[in-house]
């Protein structure tokens, strides 16, 4: 099944998962979690740029008040597909499927995930879903908004909702399988000595994420089925003409989609929790609080969904309950922020690119989270819901928070993944550009939102007073785009020309650093046995150790 083995040119290299086998089939049929992670990395990056491309078109259209760049329908399709692609095909799989896939088994000292073939299957499902989504986009697209509220999506739009629904359904299946694999792996495959209280917090974060993926995703799946059946087969479930309730759809949709925002942020929090101790050479402050707050976020995250429905016509009392619970879920996030900050205290802090991204994450997530508190305040929500205030809120968390964390993680583990060092100067520059571009793009949107600019508006010629802020935002998006292109370029460059990395270039704790860079196929030469706590930077730094000499 694999291609005949080409004799590798770099004979002198240690055998690792990258050079173990060559040929396209050795990748497409691999069950090695590390290779699958790379497959994901490539496909997710692809979708990120598609989504980003739509974002740039959105921003260009909003440069002027009149709808002059694209048609109204086109604009609606743009933000719909931007949202769908970014959420279902980029951010939800991003960290779990790339970094999680790569690192979860290594961090717990396992040879692979519990179900390697299911892992591969989940990548194929993702690709099938993605292909359907691409086909859908190229043959007309959808214009329902990523939230596809009924009855618009079920009875009114004449775009290809069913096809997009199928794509998301399949991608959702992929997400479920990833979560299932993680849960079983974390329960069953830990190395001897790797107790729950020694797990890296990255693992705790992924465990919490998996809970949401497992319990939430099936609900969006069935919701899609219901809407698709309503549309294609004329079954009536939500149809108000039959006495159905469109709000029921919103309940079902947000029952998944609110917890889903924690699918996006938790893994990123996990990444940051690895980076901060490493670059401040300290054990994490309040290990068990950080660990349990991940679980708390996952569980409480299921209790707050209707804060997206405060003006939807829900009962006032339900509004109260959900507002209250939204504040409850904010507490564990606060705990995390404070623990990260406290970890810096009396550290020995270096400003390498991963750490810069982590700083960016901290600041931007905090702002995004704090504006979440505005939204959860009932009285304010009425005014700002469905305006750019919401758009700014979630971009602060998802782009400023989650994507920053993702980039930080990619940089942090790049030496492990590729065996090469990335160019540090360029990386710091990119982090800076992303940070500045980001704030310029999305900060004006808070103001726009409070001034009343509704979201999903193609044309705002009735309110030309909004233009200045929109121009700023568009300018920022351009800078941001450059900031995202940079890592793309220099990371690719480093794969060929970068300096070879040692096994542990950051002198970081964590089992994944105790094996070769890049790791061998079965991760460890011999079964590791864990006798130390996580983040034992005190021990690592105790004897002033020399940097290991890079191989080659």
């Amino acid at each position, binding site marked *: 099944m694999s291609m005949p083995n080409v004799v590798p040119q770099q004979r002198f290299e240690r055998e690792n998962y990258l050079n173990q086998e060559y040929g396209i089939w050795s990748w497409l049929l691999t069950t090695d979690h590390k290779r699958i992670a790379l497959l994901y990395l490539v496909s997710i990056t692809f979708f990120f740029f598609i989504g980003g491309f739509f974002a740039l078109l959105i921003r260009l259209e909003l440069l002027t008040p009149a709808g002059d760049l694209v048609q109204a329908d086109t604009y609606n399709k743009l933000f719909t597909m931007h949202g769908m692609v970014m959420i279902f095909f980029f951010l939800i799989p991003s960290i779990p499927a790339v970094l999680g896939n790569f690192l979860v088994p290594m961090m717990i000292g396992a040879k692979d995930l519990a179900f390697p073939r299911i892992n591969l299957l989940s990548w194929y499902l993702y690709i099938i879903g993605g292909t359907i989504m691409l086909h859908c986009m190229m043959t007309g697209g959808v214009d329902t908004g990523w939230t596809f509220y009924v009855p618009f999506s079920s009875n009114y739009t004449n775009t290809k909702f069913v096809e997009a629904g199928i794509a998301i359904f399949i991608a959702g299946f992929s997400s479920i399988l990833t979560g299932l694999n993680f849960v079983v792996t974390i*329960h069953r495959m830990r190395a001897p000595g790797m107790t729950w209280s020694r797990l890296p917090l990255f693992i705790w974060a992924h465990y919490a994420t998996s*809970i949401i993926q497992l*319990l939430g995703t099936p*609900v969006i799946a069935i919701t899609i089925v219901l809407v698709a059946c309503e549309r294609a087969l004329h079954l009536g479930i939500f149809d108000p003409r039959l006495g159905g309730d469109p*709000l*029921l759809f919103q*309940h*079902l949709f947000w*029952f998944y989609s609110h917890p889903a925002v924690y699918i996006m942020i938790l893994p990123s929090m996990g990444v940051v929790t690895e980076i901060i101790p490493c670059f401040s050479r300290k054990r994490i402050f309040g290990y068990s609080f950080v660990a349990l707050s991940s679980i708390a976020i996952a569980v409480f995250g*299921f*209790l707050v*969904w*209707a804060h997206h429905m405060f003006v939807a016509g*829900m*009962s*006032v*009392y*339900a509004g109260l*309950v*959900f507002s209250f619970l939204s504040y409850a879920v904010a507490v564990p996030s606060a705990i995390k922020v404070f623990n990260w900050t406290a970890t810096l205290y009396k550290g020995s802090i270096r400003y390498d690119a991963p750490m810069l991204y982590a700083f960016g994450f901290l600041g931007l997530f905090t702002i995004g989270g704090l504006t979440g508190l505005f939204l959860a305040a009932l009285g304010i929500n009425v005014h700002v819901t469905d305006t750019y205030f919401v758009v700014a809120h979630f971009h602060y968390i998802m782009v400023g928070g989650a994507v920053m964390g993702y980039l930080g993680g990619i940089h942090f583990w790049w030496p492990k993944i590729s065996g090469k060092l990335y160019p540090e100067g360029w990386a710091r520059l990119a982090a800076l550009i992303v940070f500045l571009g980001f704030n310029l793009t999305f900060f004006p949107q808070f103001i726009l939102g409070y001034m009343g600019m509704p979201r999903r508006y193609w044309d705002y010629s009735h309110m030309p007073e909004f233009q200045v802020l929109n121009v700023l935002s568009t300018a920022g998006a351009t800078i941001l785009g450059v900031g995202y292109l940079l890592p793309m370029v220099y990371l690719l460059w480093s794969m060929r020309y970068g300096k070879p990395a040692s096994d542990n270039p950051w002198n970081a704790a964590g089992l994944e650093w105790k094996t070769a860079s890049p790791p061998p196929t079965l991760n460890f030469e011999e079964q590791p046995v864990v006798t130390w706590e996580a983040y034992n930077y005190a021990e690592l730094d105790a004897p002033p150790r020399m940097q290991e000499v890079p191989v080659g």
Partner: protein
Amino acid sequence: MADHSISEHSKSLPLKLYFGVWATLLILTYVTYRVAYVELGPFNSVVALVIAAIKATLVALFFMHVWRAGEKFIKAVVLASLFFLLLLLGLTMADYMTRPWS
């Protein structure tokens, strides 16, 4: 019953138990079917659901071996999903039950 060939980790239960559970399930099915035609007011739904829950529990405990599962985590998975299902139903209905007009 010659059970000597069962390996150590086997989790099967005595055959008699299986047949007993099977018979109980059939009887319960018959009961729920007949009771539905008896006027019990609002309790018809209650009885039907209680019987269904008993049947489901029997299947889970004995046919699916939750009874003997050494694994606490398996029980936790079952309970957790039921709990989250109740959250979905409960909090959604909380909206509908407190709307002024229904």
